[in-house]
């Protein structure tokens, strides 16, 4: 009965051939589908990023060719570039005040809108609008005029007798950064919506239980709402922090980094040094430093998160 085995064998090999064909086809189809993403990733992210790692180790200006200098750019940045340190300080100052202000406003308003009252939907939409407009040139232009010496803000202060002279808030070394922080706080709409969605997830039973235990509204907030909201707070914190670390348009238009470099945030410095002044190698080094720094800050936040972020699935 040799034939039977041969027949079986040929069926098997036919099957294997089919499988192989099918396997190749499957793989090919998969790659065709992810191709658009893959091209974008390789061409616009991986390739330029890795190339710039090389350029950061060269002296390379917009008019010449790159020449290898080793770590010189990095050494110069850390030891001989006061503007680098200024821009780091300004950026941290901005992030440290703007992020909590935005998130606190977002949470406060989310709590207010939690209960449906007349016109809640309208108000929620109105409070959300600044969020979608905030990054636009238009809002920056408005902001600049609002806080200029002829602007409406001075009209209010002088009109109410709080100040006797008009000053340029965007041109004042101490206040300029605060006009930009205020603009950031003003755009609390989208974290507010995310908080609202988070609040909806909290089971009502927990509040009833807390009430039976005699907890007042304030205590309920601190022992039920806040702990259960920590995952959402954490999410908002990371998203907003990364975004605000690289703030550009608002500063570039409202203060241009001035006065006296008091609003020189990192992205503006990066742009000025690397592109306006044409130091491509040096600029690449600056970009890599902030990428590493941002990664470290994010990792640290993730590491500390298990100390204060409450995850429901922990008990399972």
């Amino acid at each position, binding site marked *: 009965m040799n034939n039977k085995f041969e027949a079986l064998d040929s069926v098997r090999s036919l099957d294997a051939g089919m499988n192989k064909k099918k396997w190749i086809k499957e793989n090919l189809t998969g790659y065709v589908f992810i191709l658009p993403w893959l091209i*974008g990733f390789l061409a616009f992210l991986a390739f*330029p990023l890795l190339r710039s790692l090389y350029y950061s180790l060269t002296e390379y200006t917009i008019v010449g060719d790159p020449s290898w200098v080793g770590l010189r750019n990095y050494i110069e940045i850390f030891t001989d570039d006061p503007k680098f340190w200024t821009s780091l300080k300004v950026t941290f100052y901005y992030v440290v005040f703007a992020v909590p202000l935005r998130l606190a406003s977002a949470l406060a308003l989310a709590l207010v809108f939690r209960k449906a009252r007349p*016109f809640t939907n309208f108000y929620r939409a109105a409070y959300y609008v600044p969020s979608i407009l905030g990054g636009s040139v238009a809002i920056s232009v408005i902001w600049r005029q609002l806080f200029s010496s002829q602007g409406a803000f001075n009209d209010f202060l002088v009109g109410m007798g709080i100040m006797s002279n008009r000053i340029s808030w965007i041109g004042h070394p101490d206040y300029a950064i605060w006009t930009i922080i205020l603009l950031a706080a003003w755009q609390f709409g989208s974290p507010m919506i995310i908080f609202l969605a988070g609040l909806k997830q909290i089971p009502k039973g927990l509040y009833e239980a807390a009430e039976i235990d005699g907890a007042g509204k304030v205590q309920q907030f601190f022992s039920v709402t806040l702990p259960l909201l920590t995952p959402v707070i954490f999410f908002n914190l990371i998203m907003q922090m990364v975004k605000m670390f690289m703030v*550009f348009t608002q500063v570039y238009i409202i203060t241009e980094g001035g006065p006296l470099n008091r609003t020189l945030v990192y992205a503006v410095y990066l742009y000025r040094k690397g592109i306006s002044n044409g130091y491509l190698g040096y600029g690449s080094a600056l970009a890599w430093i902030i990428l590493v720094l941002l990664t470290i800050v*994010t990792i640290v936040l993730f590491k500390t998160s298990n100390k204060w972020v409450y995850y429901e699935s922990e008990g399972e």
Partner: protein
Amino acid sequence: MNLTFSQKEKLKNILFQVLVGGFCIFMLYPLLWMVAGSLKSSGNALSATLWPDAMQFRNYLEGWRGFGGVSFLTFFRNSFFISGTATIGQIILASFSAFGFTRTRFIGQKFWFAIMIATVLVPGQILRIPQYIMFNQWGWVGSYLPVILPQMLPVPFFTFLMVQFVRGIPTELDEAAEIDGCSKFGIFFKIILPNLKPVLVTAGIFRFYWSWNDFMTPLLYLQSVTKYPVSIALKMFSDPNAITNWGAMFAMTFLSILPTIILFIFFQRYLIDGVAFSGID
């Protein structure tokens, strides 16, 4: 005085209207001030009042003329071209790739997916100089390619968002189509794409907003005034050292955010639900 429950509720409602409504006016003041300013006479345009002293619709005509012999018609056309191409490309290509990550199997799938997730948080600003060097070498500077292409090919954020959505579509639908002899491409276009409508709208609107407001990339790559989008034109038009007609400046500023506002009014639900679902900012 003892209040009944419903009286207390009424009082709370009134308090809510006064406080939240009052704060709402305060929040929207910069926008109202802009609209009012666009109607005021030029000398008065910066005053704090929300009541225009005149109804100067002429401001719009004067502003529309633009600068350097190029009117805002060109700038708006450019902006619609850039944002429109980026948006349509992005939602189709991102959903296409998202399908690949969820509904096909291939070697390295987990690896590439991990890479995509890892790059969600890489801020665009960091890539500007590296990309600038690259596009410069490719000779793309001065054209729309470096402005549109990176916004058109799937960015990690939208791809991931769509992956989440595709996962929610029952695989039974695919299987039924497969039995009917549908290829993977057929399944994508006939089954998945129509089911993705809500997320396509949400992603599309945000892609449009971000492209419309994009300032840095056109600033870097576009060199001739006739190619400028509204964002760059507005920045030049409103240069505080050169401007004389504030009313016209406010008028153009208002027009520049009008598409955003109109989209918001029509697609509010999609936007707010989208933010709640995905955390888009």
